[in-house]
């Protein structure tokens, strides 16, 4: 479109006036202590920037737990986390010897060898506060805050997958290692959907918003989700990328994202294990205040779970940058694991497939 100078001048004046009145309104509101929803030029809430979903709150509630913590309970948990950090910051004995033969007794992922120092970890320091409530789980539906049961058909699918895996020792091939260890995708369901914390570190995201796309980058393994806005033109059924195919639209001030076409590997992993190609996940993002995005999700696949299940996760402003997590390029660990398994087999003179 060709802009003649007079039209340009009019636009400029209207634009400046409009901007001025908007700025004035915002300044007045801020002076009155009110938070004003920041908006992009097309009038939608501005969801952009760096966010984190790191939290102490786990995905699933314990069977005996209430839906919310009391303020005292929450403080105790957060204080415990802070106390642990402080304790682990204390100096060690410079004359300490090597740790014991046979392992140091550490469990879980620390694997008996003590992992590494706690200062590398950044698992979150706060209980998840969603709409003012101190949540005991990220799952809110079913009402007990726990994953719903799977259908018989889903269990069958999982059992078959399990049987396939059992043909192999867990260190036999790179393909037998977890996807995150192979640097193919982020830990757990970081990129999702649904986008869940990994309870380790780097639970960070960058959101960029244009009139027809929303881009969500997960720090871990630089996973990118591109959400196309408007009427869905979904991919063919046999095209199933990682993180699925996402289409978004606005419902008032909430961004609604619907995702289908999940990769078969993603349907065989973690929370989504046993799901079918008809899996659909719906997410809602609402800017709650200056520092918070309310993230809600619903997982739907009645061939897999007896009911749909939903969660609510606060994403808070990340005070810092999101850094490159190149992963594959520096993946000594996978090499060490495979080499180590071969070396151990040689030492043991074992040619059997090791038991899991």
């Amino acid at each position, binding site marked *: *479109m*060709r*802009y*003649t*100078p*007079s039209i340009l001048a009019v636009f400029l004046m209207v634009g400046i006036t409009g901007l001025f009145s908007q700025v004035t309104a915002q300044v007045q509101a801020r002076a009155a202590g009110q938070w004003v929803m920041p908006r*992009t*030029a*097309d009038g939608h809430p*501005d969801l*952009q*920037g760096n966010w984190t979903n790191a939290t102490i709150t786990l995905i699933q509630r314990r069977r005996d737990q209430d839906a919310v913590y009391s303020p005292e309970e929450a403080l105790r948990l957060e204080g415990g986390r802070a106390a642990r950090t402080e304790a682990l910051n204390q100096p060690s004995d410079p004359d300490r010897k090597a740790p014991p033969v046979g392992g140091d007794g550490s469990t879980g992922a620390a694997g008996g060898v003590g992992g590494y120092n706690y200062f590398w970890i950044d698992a979150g320091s706060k209980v998840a506060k969603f709409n003012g409530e101190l949540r005991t789980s990220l799952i809110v539906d079913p009402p007990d805050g726990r994953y719903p049961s799977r259908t018989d058909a889903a269990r069958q699918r999982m059992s078959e997958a399990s049987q396939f895996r059992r043909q192999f*020792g867990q*260190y*036999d*091939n*790179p*393909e037998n290692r977890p996807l995150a260890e*192979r*640097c*193919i995708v982020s830990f757990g369901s970081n990129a999702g959907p649904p986008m869940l914390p990994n309870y380790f570190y780097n639970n960070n995201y*960058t959101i*960029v*918003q*244009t*009139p*027809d*796309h929303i*881009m969500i*980058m997960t720090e871990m*393994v*630089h*996973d*990118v989700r*591109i959400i*196309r806005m408007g009427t869905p*033109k979904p991919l063919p059924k046999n095209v199933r*990328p*990682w993180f699925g195919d996402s289409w978004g639209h606005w419902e008032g001030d909430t961004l609604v994202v619907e995702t289908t076409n999940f990769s078969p590997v993603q349907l065989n992993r973690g929370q989504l294990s046993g799901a079918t190609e008809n899996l659909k996940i719906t997410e809602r993002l609402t800017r709650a205040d200056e520092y918070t995005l309310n993230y809600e999700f619903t997982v739907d696949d009645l061939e897999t779970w007896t009911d749909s299940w939903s969660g609510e996760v606060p994403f808070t402003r990340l005070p810092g*940058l*999101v*850094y*490159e997590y*190149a992963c*594959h*390029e520096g993946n000594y660990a*996978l*090499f060490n694991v*495979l*080499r180590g*398994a*071969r070396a151990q*087999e040689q030492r043991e003179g074992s*040619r059997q*497939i090791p038991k899991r």
Partner: protein
Amino acid sequence: MLSFVFKLVRTLRRTTCSVVVCMALGAISAYAQTAEIPRTQEGKPDLNGIWQALGNAHWDIEPHAARAALQMQPGPVVPVPAKDLLAFGAVGSVPSGVGVVVGGEIPYLPEARARKIENQENWAERDPEIKCYLPGVPRATYMPFPFQIFQSASHFFIAYEYAGALRNIYMEDPGPAQVDSWMGQSVGHWEGDTFVAEGSGFNDQTWFDRAGNHHSASMTVVERYTMTSPDHILYEAMIEDPQTFSRPWMISMPLYRHVNNDARIGQFKCVEFVEELLYGQLRKNPIGSEEGR
């Protein structure tokens, strides 16, 4: 006032004119054309969309003749493709190109030029693209894969299809990068209608192409993205690296918009594709070993 000028220009063009006047008129028409490029609400050229380079800079950014393969071995008469590349046949052959380096040749320092030749001779071991490593800058721009620009008032983000590479080009300088990275750290600003991205903090692991052209961790890259029409961007990148080159040098090429309505970038997560290559020998039963087949 401007509309009067436009009318005057059209009238003058219909009459005879000297070279100088014609050039001036051409420049004014060209300006009238750039007024057609899509603009954001903030008035900047709108670079949102899916873009891709044509040509074969990804093979070799310097002018080059076609050749049989990226790595050769001595043959009975002339060199022939290296053993590992034979099965590719013509699929693995390198097309000719006039290059994208402004001025023709990369101004290597002597030791760096020797290293480039060594890289070429050992391409199969050394090219980071083979291992699906992140391509770095500017190679990411002209890989034979599309990329998508997400441009808002506050952000300028590029997602590349190849290996899921990405760059968040900061619109505010966060200070120098404290750790080197594959895609570097870039800070962007507008100079008129050109988006300028200044990149630094690159590691020394990436190449410029499949021809062994390399750099050190001191490299800085200044890119300029200028929309020359609604569907074209003129891409220029100035590379400066006193450890490797005797002076700064520039590459230049057009970028073309994917104009089909349902254009989208695909997913090329190639890490899985190279596991046999990288870890095959570490399997419990490697393929080709007694127990493996």
